[in-house]
Structure formats: C-alpha cells, structure tokens
C-alpha cells in the first residue's frame, strides 16, 4: 500500500511538472514575442475579433495554472484547470481543422514544428494525462511531501 502511495505521488507530481513545463514554456514564448502572437491570433479563423483580450488571457491563465500546480494545496485545482485548458486548445484545433473556412498557415508561436494533426494528438495526450492525475488524486489533500 505504501508502495502504491509513493507511485501515485510520483505520477501526480510528474504529470504536474510536465504541465508546469509546458505552460511556462508556452506562455513565455507567447509573451516574449507578444506582437507576433497577437498578429497571428488576429489571423486566426476562430478568434480574430477577440485577439486583443484572448492574447492576454491565454498566457496569463497558463502562468496561473503553472503556479497553482507548484503549490501542493492548489495542485488538485491546478490539474483540473490544466485539463480544462488543454480541452479548450484541443477543441480549438478540432474546430479549425473541421469547421473553419481555412486553416491558417502558422500555428501561434509555440511548437511551430508540429503540424495541426500532430498538435491535436499531442494535446489529446495531455488531456488524458491530466484526467488520469485527477482520477488517481487522493481524496482531500492527503499527499504529504514527506
């Protein structure tokens, strides 16, 4: 049982840190090239009229979630929020690929090497990781760092 607990703690911590890495990297690459990011969002078939507000909201939300994941008390909430965020990204890509009148040629700064299909697969993996971490999360905040 003790072994299971340790394994569980390690898994949750690993997924959380993976998320922290992804979100910090993603938000920083957006903020460091903010003008470019805003222009690209402006060309997005889905969000262009709200590019101004969305271009702020997304990196800020990513940083907040990353911060929450680093604090044990907020980790559960952070995982749930990260799950929601990744679901939104995934839905966004899915809509662009299937319902948009055109697929924009550049994909918003992060992970530009990936194609849209790979991006979709990558996102889905992250969605499942977060869901898994939430499901195995111990009831209440019983994970002690000891």
């Amino acid at each position, binding site marked *: 049982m003790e072994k299971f607990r340790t394994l569980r703690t390690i898994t949750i911590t690993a997924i959380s840190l993976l998320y922290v890495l992804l979100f910090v990297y993603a938000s920083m690459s957006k903020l460091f090239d903010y003008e470019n990011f805003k222009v690209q969002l402006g060309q997005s078939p889905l969000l262009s009229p709200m590019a101004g507000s969305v271009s702020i909201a997304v990196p800020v939300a990513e940083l907040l979630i990353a911060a929450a994941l680093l604090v044990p008390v907020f980790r559960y909430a952070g995982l749930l929020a990260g799950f*929601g965020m990744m679901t939104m990204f995934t839905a966004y890509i899915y809509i662009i690929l299937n319902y948009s009148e*055109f697929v924009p040629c550049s994909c918003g700064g992060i992970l530009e090497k990936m194609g849209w299909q790979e991006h979709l697969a990558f996102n889905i993996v992250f969605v499942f990781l977060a869901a898994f971490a939430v499901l195995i999360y111990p009831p209440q905040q019983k994970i002690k760092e000891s």
Partner: protein
Amino acid sequence: MKRKFLWLLLTGISAIAIVVFLFGTSQEIIHHRNNFVRRFSDQVAQTCEADLKFNSFYFAGAANGQLYLGNFTAPLRLAKIDTALKTIRKQTIVLDRLDLPFRSVEIHIQNSYFFVTDGTVPCVFRGKLDLLKANWLDSKLPASFSHIQIIDSNSAAYTTSDRNGESILGMTHLGEGAGSTTNPLLLQKQIDGNFDLDGTLQYDAIAKKLVYVYLYRNQFIVSNPDLSLDYSGNTIDTISKAQIRIVKISSSGDQKLAAPPLIVNKTAATSRGLLFVNSALIGKYEQEKLWDQAKVIDVYDLKDGSYVASFYIYHIGKQKMRSFYVSGNMVYALIGEHIVGYRLTPMITKHFIKNE
C-alpha cells in the same frame, strides 16, 4: 471517484462550450459587425505578368476571354490582351464625329459592344467590338457627368451634379428620344454634398446592381439599374463620417480641401455578385511593414453586404497598384507599366454567383 468523474466531465464540457461559443461569436462578428479585423486569404498569388511599356493604361473591360485596356494619352487606342497576359494586340478605334471638344475620353466594353464616353463634352458613342467603329448617340445627357458605367447596350449610369452643385446619381437611356432620370436620394450628404460624396461607381452585370463606394467613409450604396435603392452597406473600417475640411476661398468663391483628406476606399471593382474594394486603412492586428509592400483589397458579398475576405496586391519596386479589374477567377492590377494577374482562392470564388 464518482465526484471526480463529474468534475472532469463538467470541466471538459464547459471548456468545449466556451470554445464553440467563441467560434460562433467571432464568425458573426467577422461577417456581419466586423470591428475592423481582416481575414487574409493567403493563397491569392500572382500567376502572370506583362510589361505594357506605358503607365497610361486603364481597364476598359473584358469580353470573349480578352481583357481590354484603354490608354489615357492615346484615347482612341485599344489594347487587347488574353487572360493569361501572353499576347497583346493594339487596335485603333474610329469615331464618326471628331468635332466635339474632347477632354477626358474613356472606353468601356460591354459584351460585344464598346462605348466611347466623355463626361466633359458630354457625349457617348457606341460601336460593335469586332468592327471598332463607333457612332455618336443623340442622348439626353446632363451638362457633365463622371464615373460613367455602361449598364447594357442601351443605358448608362453616372454621377452628375444637381442645381446646387451637389453630386447625384443619374442614368440615361442611350439614343434619340429616350429619357434620363436621376435619384437625388441615393448619395447621402455629410458635409458639403460635393467633396464628401466623392467615390467610385461600379456596375455588376451579373448581379444587376450598381454600387457606389464612398472615398472618404466606410459606406457603399447598392442600387438597382433604375436607380432605386437596394441597401446601403458598410466597409469593415470604422470611419463612418468623412474626415475632410473644406474652405471657401472668398476671392474666387471656390471650395477647396483645407487639409489632406482621410481616404478610406480608393478604388473598387465588382464581379458576379462580389464587391472588391481597395482600402487605404490598416486594420487591427496587421503587420505594418506589409503595408509598405502591398495594397489590400477587401471583398464583400453584394447579396447582403457582408465581409468575405481580404488579400494583398504587392507593389512592383516602388510602384503601387493604381487600378484593378476582376474577370473570371482572376484579379488584374495595373502597376506602373505592368499588368499583373492574381488567382483568387475558393474562399472568395465560392461566393460568386454561379454562371448559368
């Protein structure tokens, strides 16, 4: 465990709902109440080019798979060029009257006819395109007109001035004994009724609509060939009121622009139910450096005035596009001494009225 599933489900569903909602609203905003965010159709690209050797050409029209270009410095010369811009043939047209005080001759092609007009005379000639000989038409024309558009072989629309010198739209049935009419209500005065009403007139023979695009404000008027109003639409920029200042020179009584005006929509073209407008204003989230390299054309659907998409026409060296023309799935632009052809993408062409 069950509660966690519920939480995940709830979070997942609301996440998807938010994105779908954002998608829906942004589609609605872009097409119907655009807040000046353009959507560029990236793949509209140049496919052909030709050197015309002169920079005085203008588009006279298209017929039988050929483009026709008039020449402001050689008014009776007509250049014919195929739609792939490969071969140019120059022709000379003949008028049956040369005793008129010509000052600004223009040639217009309409199906198998060509028209020679001069709004300063005023006069209209008509001839068969294959014969290249035009006859003067004894028509009821106003003392002067401009922006003439041929509606069909027997009628033309134009702008002229009323008794107070304010611009109005008019149309004439060409030929002896036929009438003419004006509609003073189409153009909406904002400042002086002259400068502020400046713009361009287009006729779409397939949609059967006349379109007047204001030069200094974000508006266009769509009317039927008999000058009855269909609707008035808006271009995507935010300049709803003409920003010009007019001074009256007291010594001569002339009205002049006191400051450089803010131009909104420079030139326009129509084709099969779509309106193409060369806008002079940069939208939100656009790269400024591209505006030093290209001109932007915005496309609207004349059915309801909704915005479709935008694309770039690139400068050639320092020379910028001065006019453009849409024929088939191509946009042709005159840039300096060159003519270039850009192919339109399905994102735009799917909105064309289908040819029967």
